[in-house]
């Protein structure tokens, strides 16, 4: 491959505090315009910022989760620029000394397998307000042709997480973003709601000839608010850059915006205009000092992290690593899995089977119904009972799926054993009965038997199907197979 893609991601993670980073106004989404914009949030003359401890605590939690350094002393700086949704004319952010430095996130690349993406830093900052462009087209209205500004979001705490340019494809970028997304939800610092803007990614994209040590000129694509858009935007941008360079053009470092309707990125000239942010330490905010006691306190309250939990699932329950990674995509899935395998159902449930069923049957039903696993109508102990009956051969897999459907749809939340008994779904494993069944099937289908004997292997499956159908799926399929094979060879 001639060209190598280089991607680094900057993510604005909205921290799940009740109040804003520098004011006590609510961070709730969707309020009446400017009703959550306090004097500090609209930057009235004379008001001052006071830092929210909850935001710092969440930053520490993140730093510990990624194995980064929590700076004992970090500094808030002002980033100065004019924009109508930026009330003070500057954003309070961290510049030279961020709260978290370094750390890494383990991801699984579709092409390169598992590796760790290094993080440059994570810093605390405040969000801006929102510009509403379309709100004022009412004829004759005062604001016709104007933009309306809502400062409700201004001052919402953000943790900006910056990765090193370690990613080599759009797929890797998405794998990183997804892993990060599940991690920040896992440790409870962000609700992860991408529609509401709680997790927003910017991608720094460049290309270089394979083997080059020097990075190419990069473009920053702003506002990627879905994983699909991220992938499309990066792919478009990579093509654009390669074409430009191959045509003898020169890359310009710039900020670009992805337009999902046209599936293209375009230059944001307005943001480019004389970028000189004039950073300097905010004189209103002395240095943020975080002592070791606080860090240890936060560490003690940290949940088990997905990475170590995945390894534990492999060791404790014999789950394949790829399944374990998927089971630890969220704390809720992991909890569902672990509650299932630990449920007291009399038999030792196979972790591998449980994982299979959760990632297959359960996930499919969740997706179909558009619900989260914590809303699944079948609770882990009920599900465990069903798996136990499958494992001890009381029912076959196809029957188990049917029972799961009944349990899923039952308003009262059915018990697997009760449904199996009531509907007579017990598996037929009596070999005498199966011998008789197979004889009947062979006798009734001479044409298929003939096909089989003429060398058509598929005919065998057809005969198995007939046998299963005759018992409404209750016959033990392994026994049917064995007996049928023996008799045909006969």
């Amino acid at each position, binding site marked *: 491959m001639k060209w190598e893609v280089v991607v680094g991601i900057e993510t604005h993670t909205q921290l799940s505090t009740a109040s804003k980073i520098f004011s006590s106004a609510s961070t709730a989404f969707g309020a009446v315009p400017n009703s959550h914009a306090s*004097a500090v949030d*609209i*930057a*009235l*003359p*004379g*008001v*001052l*910022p*006071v*830092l929210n401890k909850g935001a710092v605590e969440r930053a520490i939690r993140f730093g510990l989760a990624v194995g980064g350094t929590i700076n004992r002393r970090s500094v808030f700086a*002002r980033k*100065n620029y*004019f924009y*109508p949704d930026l*009330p*003070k*004319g*500057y954003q309070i952010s961290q510049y030279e000394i961020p709260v978290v430095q370094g750390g890494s996130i383990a991801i699984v690349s579709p092409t390169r397998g598992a590796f760790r993406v290094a993080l440059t830093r994570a810093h605390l900052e405040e969000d801006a307000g929102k510009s509403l462009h379309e709100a004022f087209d009412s004829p004759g209205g005062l604001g016709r042709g104007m933009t309306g*500004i809502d400062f409700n979001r201004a001052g919402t705490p953000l943790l900006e997480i910056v990765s090193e340019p370690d990613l080599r494809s759009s797929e890797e970028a998405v794998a990183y973003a997804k892993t990060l997304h599940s991690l920040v939800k896992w440790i409870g610092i962000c609700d992860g709601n991408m529609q509401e803007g709680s997790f927003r990614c910017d991608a720094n994209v460049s290309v270089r000839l394979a083997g080059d040590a020097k990075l190419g000129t990069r473009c920053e694509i702003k506002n990627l608010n879905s994983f699909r858009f991220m992938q499309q935007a990066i792919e478009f941008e990579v093509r654009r850059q390669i074409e430009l360079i191959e045509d003898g053009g020169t890359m310009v470092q710039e900020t670009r915006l992805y337009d999902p309707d046209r599936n293209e990125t375009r230059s944001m000239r307005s943001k480019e*205009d004389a970028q*000189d942010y*004039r*950073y*300097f330490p*905010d*004189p*209103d*905010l*002395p240095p943020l000092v975080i002592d070791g006691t606080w860090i240890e306190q936060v560490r003690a309250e940290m949940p088990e992290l997905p990475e170590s939990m995945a390894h534990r699932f492999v060791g404790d329950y014999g789950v394949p690593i790829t399944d374990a990674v998927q089971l630890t995509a969220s704390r809720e899935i992991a909890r569902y899995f672990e509650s299932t395998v630990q449920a007291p159902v009399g038999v030792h449930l196979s972790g591998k089977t449980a994982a299979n069923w959760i990632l297959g049957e359960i996930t499919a039903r969740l997706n179909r119904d558009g619900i989260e696993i914590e809303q699944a109508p079948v609770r882990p102990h009920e599900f465990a009972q069903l798996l136990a009956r499958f494992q001890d051969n009381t029912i076959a897999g196809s029957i188990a799926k049917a029972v799961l459907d009944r349990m899923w749809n039952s308003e009262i939340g059915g018990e697997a054993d009760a449904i199996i008994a009531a509907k007579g779904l017990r598996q037929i494993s009596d070999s005498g009965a199966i011998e008789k069944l197979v004889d009947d099937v062979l006798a009734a289908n001479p044409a298929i038997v003939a096909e089989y004997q003429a060398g058509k292997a598929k005919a065998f499956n057809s005969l198995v199907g007939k046998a299963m159908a005759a018992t409404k799926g209750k016959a033990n399929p392994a026994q049917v197979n064995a007996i049928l094979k023996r008799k045909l060879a006969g």
Partner: protein
Amino acid sequence: MITSSVAELSRSLLARRLSSIELTGSLLDRIETANPTLNAFLTIDREGAMSQAKAADARIAAGTASPLTGIPLAHKDVIMTEGLRTTCGSRMLENFVAPYSAFVAERLARAGMVTVGKTNMDEFAMGSSNENSYFGPVRNPWNTTCVAGGSSGGSAAAVAARLVPAATGTDTGGSIRQPAALSGVCGLKPTYGVCSRYGLVALASSLDTPGVFGQTAEDCALLLNAMAGHDARDSTSLDRPAEDYARQLSENAGAKPLAGVRVGLPREYFGAGAEPDIVDAIETAIAGFRSLGATTVEVSLPNVDHSLPVYYVISPAEASSNLARFDGVRYGHRAAKYDDLTDMYKKTRAEGFGAEVKRRILIGTYVLSHGYYDAYYLKAQQVRRLIADDFRKAYQRCDVIVGPTSPTTAFCIGDNIDDPLKMYLNDIFTIASNLTGTPAISIPCGFDGKGLPIGLQIQGNAFAEAQILNVAHRYQQTTDWHRRVPAGFAP
């Protein structure tokens, strides 16, 4: 009555020899008569003041009064006062009504003080003559062709002309002490962090300090007692145990009340271009300190000469950022005609700000801009530390540092307006204590040949307010400079 100090008025009010209604009413009459001449007030709130006076009288009658209850007060117009216009002396905020009150305004109101109005000032507290006010210069009560100093010129002139017994101010590079000196009153700048900046329209956040004007050091102490305190809304407000800043004033110290006090005389402050009359008056005052028992010691502040350039990098830098919020979006002036958003910003700010404010925003923007930050801003912050270290070392050898407040007495309106450097040099002796965050007071110590008042500056180490107030108070007990009233404003 009109010329009495806060302490004297307090005794009369508490003894009910005088009511706040009477006092406030007669001062409002005086303000209304004098203001067309002095231009010291931008807003006079007769109605509000009279109702506060009534409440104060009720509180006195109920026996729940503080020593400040019922005393009329004026606030510099950079201090937010809920429901009152707060302009900062700028066209930008010409019609801005404060939707909340500053911490210091809240504190003084809670003590029962009566706010009669808002005083004129250099626009956004940038200036040393009050000529930078959008609403015209304040005139000096001692000579109305002269400036009153700045930026808190309105407060200084109001106290000098005995329109109010006390007024608030803010001091970023000398904006309380220099106008106090030029107007012949006391002006106290406390330690940075002792009084909350909440509700002060920011000029330079790391230097801005709210403070007070009064006739006497004792009055300054009384007001500071009410204004000081921790405020959770200002992250630079200090959480320290409350102290009585007047505690040393009532101690009976005999004939040598300043015995044991070491007065530091920085070599750099003498022969540094102060007018001869000023140098003479300061020397006389120093002799006075000695006769009160103080010893003098020469100290050196080798980096203090750089105070002015350090200030003119740091202060405009912070100001350029602090004043970015005045963009015509949420409040304040907005240009009537513009092509687009950027044009609206540019015209709004070109029209809303005066020449000096624009100059400082430009200096500040330049020194912070790409490629210049290290050379200017970072360098200035390093030299700032060298200056602070000089003072720290000096305070190992002395308790207070004494010298002139200002190199000149009041100058004529228009004289310095075209030469920023000449204007900036007014603050050559005052800037250092803003850079170091330490307290200082200016008190009257004589008059020059033209009959204009001279100010003496007493500086102290951080939290030495009680001590500098005591030194000033003992001096005032043996002199009457602070008792003089400008001829045109004698009752």
